[in-house]
């Protein structure tokens, strides 16, 4: 039974990696845009057209979030009690924060889509901060999930 949940967890993790790459790319591109495309990796990252990432980010976020909500009860039953038993409060608290940051980011997706759809210089700050908030949440969720999985993966 737990093998099935482990497979779902792995798919959740792989989707999160794709999401992490896309949203980080977009956040850097909008927060620190290159005025002129130069050679090199950093310039290439800064020069990306953020608008092309928007729909992919939304789809990846929804898929990753949906899988997360499906496997969440297994965490509550099999992982969280172990964290409490061993007094691992920081990872437990980080996971609590993860679920709240993700819920807020989910609700921000329509606004994120709205501002990227009508992207212009006047709303660049809004796009930059919104994208950075979602990127921060995704990074928080990814690192927390990774640490929790190291402590007690579902297959353990």
């Amino acid at each position, binding site marked *: 039974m737990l093998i099935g949940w482990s497979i779902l967890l792995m798919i959740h993790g792989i989707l999160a990696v794709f999401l992490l790459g896309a949203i980080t790319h977009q956040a850097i591109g909008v927060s620190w845009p290159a005025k002129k495309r130069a050679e090199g990796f950093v310039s290439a990252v800064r020069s990306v057209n953020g608008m092309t990432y928007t729909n992919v980010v939304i789809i990846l976020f929804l898929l990753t979030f949906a899988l997360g909500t499906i496997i969440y009860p297994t965490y*509550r*039953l099999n992982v969280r009690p172990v964290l409490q038993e061993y007094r691992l409060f920081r990872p437990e608290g980080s996971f609590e924060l993860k679920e709240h940051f993700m819920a*807020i980011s989910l*609700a*921000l997706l329509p606004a994120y889509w709205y501002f990227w759809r009508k992207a212009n210089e006047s709303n660049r700050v809004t796009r930059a901060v919104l994208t950075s*908030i979602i990127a921060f949440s995704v990074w928080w969720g990814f690192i927390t999930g990774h640490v929790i999985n190291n402590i007690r993966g579902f297959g353990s």
Partner: protein
Amino acid sequence: MTKFEQLFPVFGATFAVIYAVVLDYNWALVTYHPKIGVWEWGAAVMKDGPPMYWYGVVLTSALAALVLTAVVALIPASVRSRASWSGLTWLLPLCSMVFLGWLLSGYYTK
């Protein structure tokens, strides 16, 4: 942009604030008992195994944010546009996230 789409920032900003309040007071619309696979209305007490309120907190917040967004939609556009929704869209969620961090700071000081 349709009027409907113009309300997206309102929904995001209101959800973030409402979510923090709903979580603080645990006004969960439903509770899930994962061990026995049972859903219950409201913030129910523990039965067999730990109860899960998060799904209910998200639902309550989403419904309340939808209602509030609908109320804002009734306000004439000329009045509504006076509020800087482009600023509130990120400022309110940011404040909410800081509040949530403070609310759960006990986990880091135990």
